[in-house]
């Protein structure tokens, strides 16, 4: 999503990603709190299920998009100097891309461990 992402699009993405993440988190907490004993093997098994696998991958991407819209909103409100604003936005997007790529990398290496 670019700096010029249209208002409606950004607003809509923020809500859709928020709704998805809320569902994911509720499900996640529900499973964690109701499973008798969560062992590493069970954990791997749970995450290797195709649905959970896809959902978690999506969660990471959704998190990045959601954070981008939110952070962009804050910057557009509070950083009034144009060049400083551009710099801040560039730093935030760099940070978010690196963080989510890192998370995806860890996640997929986990998926590979399961297959191996």
């Amino acid at each position, binding site marked *: 999503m670019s700096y*010029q992402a*249209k*208002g*409606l699009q*950004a607003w*809509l993405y923020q809500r859709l990603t928020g709704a998805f993440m809320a569902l994911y988190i509720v499900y996640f907490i529900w499973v964690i709190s109701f499973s008798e004993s969560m062992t590493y093997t069970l954990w791997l098994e749970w995450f290797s299920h195709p649905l959970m696998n896809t959902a978690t991958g999506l969660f990471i991407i959704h998190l990045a998009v959601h954070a981008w819209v939110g952070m*962009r909103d804050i910057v*557009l*409100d509070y950083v*009034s100097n144009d060049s400083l604003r551009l710099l801040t936005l560039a730093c935030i997007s760099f940070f978010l891309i690196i963080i989510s790529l890192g998370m995806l990398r860890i996640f997929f290496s986990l998926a590979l461990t399961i297959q191996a």
Partner: protein
Amino acid sequence: MLFTIYRFNPETDETPYMQEYDLSEIKPGTMLRDALLRIKNEQDESLSFRHSCGEGVCGSDGMNINGTNGLACVTSVDGLKQPIIIRPLPGMPVIRDLVIDMTQFYTQYRAVKPWLIVKDPIPEVEFKQTPEQRDKLDGLYECILCGCCSTACPSFWWNPVKFRGPAALLQSWRFLADSRDQATAERLEELEGPYKLYRCHSIMNCVDVCPKNLNPTKAIGHIKKLMLKNML
């Protein structure tokens, strides 16, 4: 009764300052505007503020009263904590004392084209509406443009040039909701982008301060919903 009032005369003062006034023999139920007029007439004729109708219709005497924007003419001094601290509406350039420059506010108002745009030939007699269509304009047309809402809005403080502000957006919805208006697509197109409409984060200061009890946040929500509907 004690008053602390913001004073600034660009011709003589380098910086604004707060001045105290003590007013005695105030009858219960006195409106703040009348108290200010008494201060002006009895104690300090240099005190400047706008006012006109005195009954909450013209919207001239919007000011910041004990930290909350409101109209002096419909605010009773009885319930106010003393000293009553009066400042100009926040975030706007001060011309003198409580008189602010409303140019930016009117520029944003003008930008939403607050008039009916009709493309069909105009009917010879009158535009007709059903009572239901007319009902949709209730809570929208009553705005008196006092500026209390927009100057209470943090988003308007941060981006007064780019963000339309609650007052202008309420009027935008007033015409979008009007069955006679035929420029829905153009109006929505004009509001696109991250600034004009979407700087609103539903802070709702506008709803809190509106002396006419209108709800700009709700109107803005309607505009967003209509945009979404049009996109789908």
